[in-house]
Structure formats: structure tokens, C-alpha cells
């Protein structure tokens, strides 16, 4: 327990600094701890949780959370207000007829218009909703094949490391703060988390 607390205490300032940075500056990228930085945590379970909590800086960042809403409407910008104009999930997560995601969002970011883009732009299914949930609950959700699109842990790693839409989070275009670190660093953390038993935070 003391080990965990000291780990948490050492992470807190970094977390706080990271959050402050992401909220304050529009385009400056916050840091993400490297996977190797956790080797000092000897207890494997504690290390696993600590790693996931670091990864949580990405998972709970607006760039990710905005398209993992608890309801049927994506969120927008860094303050996470409901997407304007009204946009809904639709039957397939790709929007209502007339207001499909692709009506406005193209294959790439449209910089001059501050409109983000990716070929796979869509809303995560409702069972993958992250808004309003604790990191621990999100963690359990990510591990649960019934709620993660039937993925194994290895497939989760692959998704986090290689998925292009996930990768968009680090290249969101002007007016939008990128997720902390890089996709590579994030992927390393997820890989390490799985390797250390994929343990979830209790909160």
C-alpha cells in the first residue's frame, strides 16, 4: 500500500502538470511517462495499475472522450460541450441521415476550417462510453470482450498502437489540444499494462 501511495504521489504532480498544460495551451503536447519509467514499481499489480493510470491521461483526454460519449451526441473541443451543430449517433455510429459524420468530416483534417478528419470518423458504440465513468470502470470496460467489440487483450494493444483513428488523437489539427505524448508511447504503456496482468485501478 505504501508503495502504491508513493507511486501515486510521484505521479500526481506529473498528472496535474499534464492536465494543466492540456487545458492551458491549445497546441502544446503534454508529456506521457515512458513505459520504462515504471520499472521502479516492484509490485507487479501496482505497476500495472500505475501504468494504466498514466495511459488514462490519454484515455480521458478530450480527444478520445469526445467520441466516447455516454449519450448519443459526440462532444466537442477541449471543454467537451455537446457537438454543435446537433449531431447524433444514428443507427451505426456514423450519424443521422442528412448529418452523417462524413457530411462534414473528411479523410484528413481541414486546417483552414478547424474541422478534424479521418477516414474512419465515427462514434464509439454506446457500450464503449467513457464519459462520466471512473478510470477503473473504463478499464474494466476495455478488458471486457462483451463491451470492447470482442477483442482479446492482444487485439486491444494492436488497436491502441496501430489504429489510425486512435492515432488521430495526437494530430488533431489547429484549435484542438493533442493527446499527451505520442501514440507510440501510449501503445508502449498499454503493452506494458497487459504484460503486467492488465490490472485496473479501483477508482
Amino acid at each position, binding site marked *: 500500500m505504501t508503495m502504491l501511495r508513493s507511486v501515486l504521489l510521484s505521479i500526481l504532480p506529473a498528472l496535474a502538470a499534464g492536465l494543466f498544460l492540456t487545458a492551458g495551451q491549445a497546441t502544446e503536447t503534454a508529456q506521457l511517462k515512458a513505459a520504462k519509467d515504471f520499472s521502479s514499481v516492484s509490485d507487479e499489480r501496482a505497476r500495472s495499475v500505475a501504468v494504466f493510470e498514466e495511459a488514462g491521461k490519454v484515455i480521458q483526454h478530450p480527444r478520445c472522450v469526445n467520441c466516447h460519449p455516454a449519450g448519443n451526441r459526440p462532444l466537442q473541443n477541449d471543454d467537451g460541450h455537446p457537438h454543435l451543430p*446537433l449531431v447524433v449517433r444514428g443507427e451505426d455510429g456514423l450519424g443521422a441521415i442528412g448529418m452523417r459524420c462524413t457530411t462534414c468530416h473528411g479523410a484528413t483534417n481541414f486546417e*483552414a476550417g478547424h474541422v478534424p478528419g479521418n477516414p474512419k470518423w465515427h462514434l464509439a458504440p454506446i457500450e464503449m462510453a467513457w464519459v462520466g465513468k471512473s478510470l477503473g470502470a473504463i478499464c474494466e470496460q476495455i478488458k471486457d470482450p462483451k463491451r470492447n467489440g470482442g477483442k482479446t487483450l492482444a487485439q486491444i494493444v494492436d488497436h491502441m498502437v496501430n489504429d489510425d483513428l486512435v492515432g488521430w488523437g495526437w494530430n488533431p489539427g489547429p484549435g484542438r489540444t493533442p493527446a499527451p505524448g505520442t501514440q507510440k508511447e501510449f501503445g508502449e504503456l498499454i503493452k506494458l499494462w497487459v504484460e503486467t496482468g492488465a490490472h485496473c485501478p479501483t477508482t
Partner: protein
Amino acid sequence: MPQDSGFSSGTSLSRRHFLQVGAAIGGGLMLGWVPEGQAASGSELFAPNAFIRLDRQGKVTVVSPMIEMGQGTYTSLPMLVAEELDVDMSNVGVEHSPPNDKLYGNAILGGSQTTGNSSSIRAFYLPMRQAGATARAMLIAAAAEKLNVDAEALTTEPGYVVHAAGKQRLAYGELADAAAKQQVPTKVNLKDPSTFRIIGTAAKRLDVAGKVNGTATYSIDVKLPGMKVATVAASPVFGGTVASIDEAAALKVPGVHQVVKLDNAVAVIADHYWAAKMGLKAAAVTFDDGPNATLTTADVVSALAKAAENPGAVAKNEGDVDAAFAGAATKVEAIYEAPFLAHATMEPMNCTVHVTPDGCDVWVGTQIPTVAQQAVAKTLGLKVEQVRLHNHLLGGGFGRRLEFDFIVQAALIAKQAKDPIKVVWSREEDIQHDMYRPYYYDRFAAGLDEQGTLKSWSHRIAGSAIMARFFPPLFKDGIDPDGVDGAVDMPYAVPNKRVEFIREEPPGIPTAFWRGVGPTHNVYVIESFIDELAAIAKKDPVDYRRAMLADNPRALHVLNRAADMAGWGKPLGDRRGRGVSVQNTFGSYMCQIAEVTVSESGEVHVDRVVCAVDTGVAINPDTIIAQMESGIIFGITAVLWGVITLKNGRVEQSNFDDYRMLRIEEAPVIEVEVVKSSADPGGIGEPGTSALAPAVLNAVYAATGVRLRKLPIQPALLKTQ
């Protein structure tokens, strides 16, 4: 041109007024007449006055003095002609009028060819009918000659002169040549309204076929041989100047031809808008912000508040306000504020100018063709006749296109080029270089007697005097007649009443007329404050108003009708409420009742708006309903989200992501009743907007018990406690 008192709402079209206008029309008729013997071009043979042309096929073209910006003039004005001329609307087309105050001047707006202040019908109801009747008389005279009968023996059916006795009829088209040779009568009889066939019906609009298939031409759509497109960045701080331009970088952008520097703006001319925009970005223009570099909204408000501490120019003074207030059983004071607003027409500002050795051509959508023509002439050092201005359908006016700033700017840019240059503003430029509805700061003091009856009323208004810039002769003795419009003439009977105006200009910020003009601001504050007094007097808001409208039967009627339609008094449920506003503005009487739901987080949703409107003779009832729908939705956007703020001298808002517009899913149910009336026609383009804000604010009070005295509505103030 008849010197009317100008922006007078509720101008009654007295006989004397008609004769004055008639004389002007007589002059117009003479000027517009195609002289005998002169070969007219193709099919246009009969042009008895500046408003009408009739060809040999019987097709009537109405040259509309007032521009179409959605409010329906291009249908209602031709309806007036068609009624008296006796043709079917299916045979009528409409054309833009060229700039010409003598022929197309608006008598309500000082004889200027200006579309605004909801005055088109009020100004042209009689002149257009007169024009139609005159043309009809000449067609009858021509037929009388042809048939060798007395004109009195002839009547008309739509498109035909009829000789009943002789069982003959001659088509108007057949008579066009002969009619052109007739003397223009100086006096004609107009139809008795009880015989109207077209006026009062929902005649189909004449301007819309092209608007649903992409063929309608707005000024932004102008295409000319050799034309180039430019976009422009002016100093973000009003009063600033251009400091540096990276011209070389701009010229490197493919498609860019030229960089033009004005004192306070830089334009890039290119093959198309996108190259111009990219060129402007590459130009990396910097500005010297100038004297207003640190201006904030708070600065503007504190200056207004300070100015409002002292008495202003007295616009109205009846009874003894101070004595009545001093002796009042209940004294109520309140301060109300109304923010800067942008117009945000859907079509951003744009203008095309071609400067040539002999003058220039201007293609623009404008509410002020002659004023714009004069401004361009002055700017380019030309005679007015050398400026050929071509008007277009407007993609929204709302008062923005009463200004010529962007037109003069385009002329200055085009002067430095040789091709026709189409200058298109980005939406950001449009919002940040608007000319704003002023920030108003109002102080009320009311005295009620023991029964809660309003006995003393003091209304002090501090703000920019738009009229002092727009038309200085009308800014007299420190009073802006628009600034007090709706205040000096509020519909309620109060024995002691004083209205003051204090001119306080925001440094550097240009102000201008915004839909509903003076009444939009004054009806909001007055109807909100009256509602406050009703609450203090523990009276129902509708009853409280009823008691003060005994001498104003038309206002009382619309109030009663709206209350009836709305089911006033029926319970609505928790966090839901109804609010009422009454007004007599622009020559029309209106009552709106809004129903709102306020969420726990304070978000206001306008569920339903009921509207009873008495606009005198209703030319086209469907247009009236459409203008109510339009004004209401325009008003809801403003009351919920409308605000322009200043920081570091700059307008903070830039596009529709931060200057929010009402959308279809947020629109309320709207029910409109058009009162049948034979009174002189009133105006309808604007009153729908001026009535809305207080109806909603009063509904919010009914729903939450919170009285809001500033706009836009702040949900934080309405959260459930």
C-alpha cells in the same frame, strides 16, 4: 422630394401626404415616359411611369423601388400594381430598380431610395396603386380611340379592356403601342378595397423559382469577363492601420495576381477566392492597433453607466414626472442593458467593382443604391452619373446592407486594378467588421399608486446615436429619433412620462441599424420593466397591460387575441412559463406570447410563440405570417445567444461556432393571427423581432421567478437552486 419627418413609425397616409407623393409620381411618370415616335427596344413599348413596363405580349414588368431581402417586396409591390392595372399575377415579372431617388425615393425615409425601417408598403401602397391605375387609364384611352367609343363605356378584365355593349375586348398587349401615345392622366381613381381581387390574397412569390434551383443571382454570384476575386483583412481593432505585409510571399501563392494596400486593410486579388484567401494568409499582415487597442466591453459599459447618471436630452415630457415619482406609494428603479449585436446575414459582405476610364460599374446587393452610388462617386472622384450601380437580390439585409463601407472598400481596391474585382469577405471578416447594433444602457424609474397603477414613468436611454452618423439632419437637440423609437410612443397611457436620450459613442466601434432598430431595444426594456411593475403590483401581466390600453383599441385587441390563442392563465407545469409583450411599432400593432421551458441547468427552450398582428390592410397575409416566423426566430437567436464582446480592442466572436444561430430543431411552434383591418398598412419586416425578447424574458420570469435585465440569457442565473 417631399420632406417627410423621416423615421416616423405609424405614419398615417393622409390625403395631403398622398397628394405630395402623387406629385412626385407625376414627375416620375413624365420622366419615365417613352416619347411618341421613339422606337422602343424590342418588346418594351409601354412604360407609363418608372414602375411599369408592358410589352406586346401583355407581359407586365414591375420595376420595384424597394429591394428584395426575403421580406417579400418583390411580390407585394407588384401585387399593388397588378390590382389596379387589372392583370393576373401570372403575367407579372419584377425587376431591380436602378439608382434614382427621383423615381424610386422612399417618402417615409426622406425621399431616399432606401429599403428599411419596414416602410416599403407604407411608402409605396398608394404610389404603386396609382401607377397601376394610371397605366390602366391609358390602356382604356387607347382602346376608346381604337373602338371609337367613350372611355366611360369601357371596363377591364385581367389583361383586357372590355367594351361590354359591343361585345369586344382588346388584349393589353395589343394596346401597348397605342397606350404609349396617350396623355398621362394626372388624376386617377383607385379601387375601393372591398373590390380587391389580389391585395389581401396569398399571391405566390415572384422571386423564388430561381432561389430553389440555383439560378437566382446574389451579388456574390456575379460573373464578368476577366473578373478576379479578392478577399480582404482589415485591422482587427477599429481605427488601426496596416503595419507590414509580406507581399512577396503572397504573390508566390499560385493564382494570386496582386496585393492591394489600403490604410487599414490589405486585399489579395487572385483567380479565385481560395487563392486570394491563401495569399492573404501568406501575406502575414500586421497592424498598428491604434488608439482603441485596449478597449473592452467593460470599458464601453462603464462609460454608458457613467453617462446615464446624468439627465439627458428630453425626447418626451408629459405631466410632472418628478413630483409624481416623489409622491408615489411604490417606487421602482431598474437598469437594463442590451449588448452589441452582429447582423450575420447568410450572404457575407461582398461587392464587385470595375473602374474604367469613363467611370465605374458596381455590382452589389444593397438597401441603399443611391447613397452607395454617391459614396463610390465621392471616393473615386467621379460624377454620380459615372457610377453605374447594379443591384441584386440580397442574401439577407437586416440593416447591414444599409451601409456602404464594404462597397467603398471594394471601389478603393478596384481602383488599384484594371479588371473587375469581386471582393468577398470571409465570415470572420463579416462578423469582426460588422457595424453593430449599439450597446444600450437604460435607467427606469416608475412610481405606482396604492393600487399598483403606473403613475410616473421615467426612461433614460444611453447609447450610440446611429442617426447622427447615418442621417445627421435627423439628429436634433441631442435626440436620436431611432434611439427613442418605441419609447416616446409606447402604447400605454401614463399621466406622467419622460423619455431622455444620452448620446454616448463607443470609441472606434461603428454602430448601425439592426433588425427592429430602436423598437427592438426599447420594446425589450419597456415590456420587461412593465412586467416587473405588474409583478410588484401583484397583477396578472396581461391584465396589467389591459388596464393601460383602454385608449388604444388596436393594441388591446391584439393583446386579447394573443392571450386567447395562447390559453393565457392555463397552468403549464414546473419550470415552464408564459410571457407577453405588446407593441405599436412601424405602424403595426402586435402582441406576442412566448412559452418556455427552463431546464435544471438553466437552459431556456422556447417551446411556442403565439402572435397576433394588426398591420392595417394586409397586402399578402402569407408574407405577413412568414415575416412573423422570421422575426421570431431571428429574435430567439438574439435573446438566447446574441452578444458581441470586445477584448484588446477586437471583436471576440468570429463565425457560427462562437456566434451561435438558432437551428431547425430549436425552433418553436409558431402560431400567427393576422387581424383583418382596413386601416392604413403598417410595416412588417421588423416588428416580429422587436416583440420577441421581452415575451421570452417574461416567460422565463414566470418559469423561474428570476428577472433578467441583461442579454443574452445566462443559464447560470436560472439554475435550480
